[in-house]
């Protein structure tokens, strides 16, 4: 087994784990804007728990995709072109979500806010679902020909695994967001989030467990089965901690669940990065899809410095904004228009 491609396979798994861990809760918070928050103040509480960090979280996605391009160009090319329409949905969802975060508070009318709330909630849902579907399909396979191109038209990628993977990331994001809100807010939101967390955790983690288990039945190795068992234990721990009100521990245990679950899935499919459902000979693997050792070596050196640095300053950001947010902290919507623009408009002419 070649060393550098294997290292980069692990690195990409780590980047996806980082993405799902971090953006997981802000995608979930986005969906909870419509499912959980009861009024505008609560929605703003939710929004401001992720306000300073969601954009930094999203860069994990760009880095995961960019690293896949650089380290496994054939994997990147085949996966992204085969999943053309679902990734278009992800892009549209991410565009609306990003713009909505920034623009929602910029006009003080209910109609404006409601529209952007939907953009955040639906954008978060479709982004989570689409990313989940894409990740599931890269583990279960796509109808690729010898050149790595999709056969069978625009919807040939569709399978039950796409739905399972989509639900897996949506479900995980929701439960992760509830844990995050319990940790990051105060007052009524905090208590409700904790209650929802305990009540919904088993159901919401079911699809991701289903995905991990089906991969194990298809490709599992003893050590990846062991990881699944550990992941289940971590989920149980998260649930217990949540019941006890140990919010920080619950959040960390859930993170451990994610890391173990992702490792069990990526570990099981290794060394295949994207199987072909048409012919096993067309499978993309860490050896036949990777860049040269020179490129991988260069990237390894940079990542060895760069990634710890990213983790350090992002951790610092979370520390800076560590305080809990509650309804009492939300300032009034700031409407400057009556003050100055009224005059600007009336004196026109």
């Amino acid at each position, binding site marked *: 087994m070649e060393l550098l491609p294997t290292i980069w396979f692990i690195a990409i798994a780590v980047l996806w784990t980082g993405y799902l861990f971090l953006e997981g809760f802000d995608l979930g918070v986005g969906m909870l804007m419509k499912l959980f928050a009861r009024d505008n103040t609560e929605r*703003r509480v939710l*929004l*401001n728990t992720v*306000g*300073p*960090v969601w*954009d*930094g979280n*999203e*860069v994990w996605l*760009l880095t995961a*995709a*960019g690293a896949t*391009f*650089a380290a496994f*160009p*054939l994997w*990147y*090319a085949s*996966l*992204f*072109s*085969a999943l*053309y*329409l679902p990734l*278009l949905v992800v*892009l*549209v969802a991410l*565009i*609306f979500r*990003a*713009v909505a975060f*920034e*623009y929602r508070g*910029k*006009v003080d009318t209910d109609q404006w806010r409601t529209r952007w709330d939907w953009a955040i909630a639906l954008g978060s849902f479709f982004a989570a679902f689409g990313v989940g579907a894409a990740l599931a399909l890269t583990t279960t396979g796509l109808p690729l020909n010898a050149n790595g*191109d999709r056969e069978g*038209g*625009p919807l040939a990628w569709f399978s039950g695994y796409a739905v399972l993977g989509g639900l897996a990331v949506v479900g995980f994001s929701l439960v992760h967001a509830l844990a995050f809100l319990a940790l990051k807010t105060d007052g009524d939101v905090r208590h409700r989030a904790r209650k929802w967390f305990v009540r919904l955790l088993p159901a919401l983690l079911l699809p991701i467990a289903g995905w991990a288990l089906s991969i194990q039945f298809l490709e599992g190795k003893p050590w990846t089965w062991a990881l699944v068992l550990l992941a289940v234990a971590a989920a149980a721990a998260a649930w217990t901690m949540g019941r006890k009100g140990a919010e920080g521990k619950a959040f960390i245990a859930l993170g451990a669940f994610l890391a173990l679950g992702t490792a069990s899935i990526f570990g099981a499919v290794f060394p295949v990065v994207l199987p072909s459902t048409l012919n096993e000979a067309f499978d993309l693997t860490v050896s036949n899809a990777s*860049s*040269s050792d*020179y*490129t991988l070596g260069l*990237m390894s050196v*940079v990542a060895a410095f*760069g990634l710890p640095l990213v983790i350090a*300053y992002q951790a610092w*950001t979370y520390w*800076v904004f560590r*305080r809990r*947010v509650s309804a009492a902290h939300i300032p009034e919507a*700031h409407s*400057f*228009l009556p*003050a*100055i*623009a009224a*005059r*600007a408009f009336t*004196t026109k002419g």
Partner: protein
Amino acid sequence: MDALDALEIARWQFGITTVYHFMMVPLTIGLGLVVAVIQTVWHRTGKPEYLRMTKFWGKLFLINFIMGVATGIVQEFQFGMAWSEYSRFVGDVFGAPLALEALLAFFVESTFLGLWIFGWKQLKPGIHLACLWIAVIGSVFSAYFIIVANSWMQHPVGVEMIDGRPVMTDAWAVFTNNTALVAVPHTLFGALAVAGGFLLGIAWYHLWRRRRDGVDTVGVDGKVIPGDAADIPGRDRDDHKVWIRSLRIGAVVAMISFAGTALTGDLQGKLMFEQQPMKMAAAEAACHDGTGFSVLSIGNLGSQNCDDIVALIEVPGILSYLAKGDFTTEVQGVNSLLPQYKEAYGTHLPDNPIYGERAGQEIDYLPVMEVTYWGFRMMIGFGGIAALAALVALWLTRNGTVPESRWLMRLAVFGILAPFGANAAGWIFTEMGRQPFVVAPNPDPNGIDQVFMFTAAAVSPGVTAGELLASLVTLASIYGVLLVVEVKLLVKYIRGGVVSAMPELVHAPIDENEDATPGPGGPGGGKPADDVLAFAY
């Protein structure tokens, strides 16, 4: 050719999404640098007008920034989605700068900008300012990495062909590609030009409005007498300083950046004459070898038959200067270059399935001359107009305010668009001028042989024209709607003036010794974490 041609749709999509993305990005980079400098001045001097400038321009910066972020993700994804053959061919060398951009630049940019937006009270003033600088430097690095990637498409270096694919053998060569080293400053000056025009136009509007409303008057000596509008928060004498300083900063930045784009553009042109001679011949719409630069050519540029084109006004020697730095060297025209290209890279596309129905077709080495000829001239023209306008603006505002003329104000506001136009024209020129190649060959005899790719081979073979059309229509309509939303929001905040970015001014005492504005030691100076939310969405 089918009615629906996947390659053509994919090219339109890449062009539209990239030009759009590059409307937001230069403003982000340029305005980010300007705001960082202004906040630094505030940090040093504590003068309230600089805080107001930081807040106001910072607010507009953020409204625009997010659009650059949102549309940037599309850029990274569409190489794989629509151009999978391209991605497979270049991945070993092209993927690295993209991955490094995300890892080393974009993480920095988005994380530290989040700290800056929300950290006004949580961070000490010096650290808060440093966060902005770090984010801005991140955006500059981001530009560097992207241009390294693009420059490799213009001028491939640092690779060897192994099994039909370029494999990176010299990262130093890739990351110090001379094409990139001149394109980076050229692009950064282009970004600053956008910021300069933006400041100038908007500040002009506010100064004009203060005069129109009678807040500012002009004394007998012609000099401005700044006033206070007691009934409107924020429209005091400091407000006048905000706008006149912004206007002057904008004008100076616009002029410096035009000089910068001209100097770097000249270097870039000289490289381009060596590296992509056909692009420059097409920029000139020149059939025959010569020394003259065409100011106006007539004839049917669209016919792609260069003997139809007559240079109506031509300045002898200038073309030689652009290419070689003297006034006499003959520069090769299209007619001399075509046979050379055919000999080096073939007359017909190979009979290979990756060319789809284009396999075996004759290759047209001449870029679309209407686009290259006018793109080149619009780039220079819009840039020059903006710089000239900035000079005139400095003269007209020498007495501390703007003339009363509504038309001049409209012109200044409209002029904001000129540097945007110059940027778009320049990129359209250089990308269209590279055709029919997506990776242009490197003609240096000591360089690498046969590392090039025709655009016709680059598109995703498995993706249908219908999918591409669906995404083109979807993205173009969403981008259209979001452009309207962004511009409306910008207009709203611009009209609102400083108070739109500083609600605290509404409650501030409005008198000469206004002191509600905290000095640099002020924001959170005492108890940093007192307010959980210094800023709230």
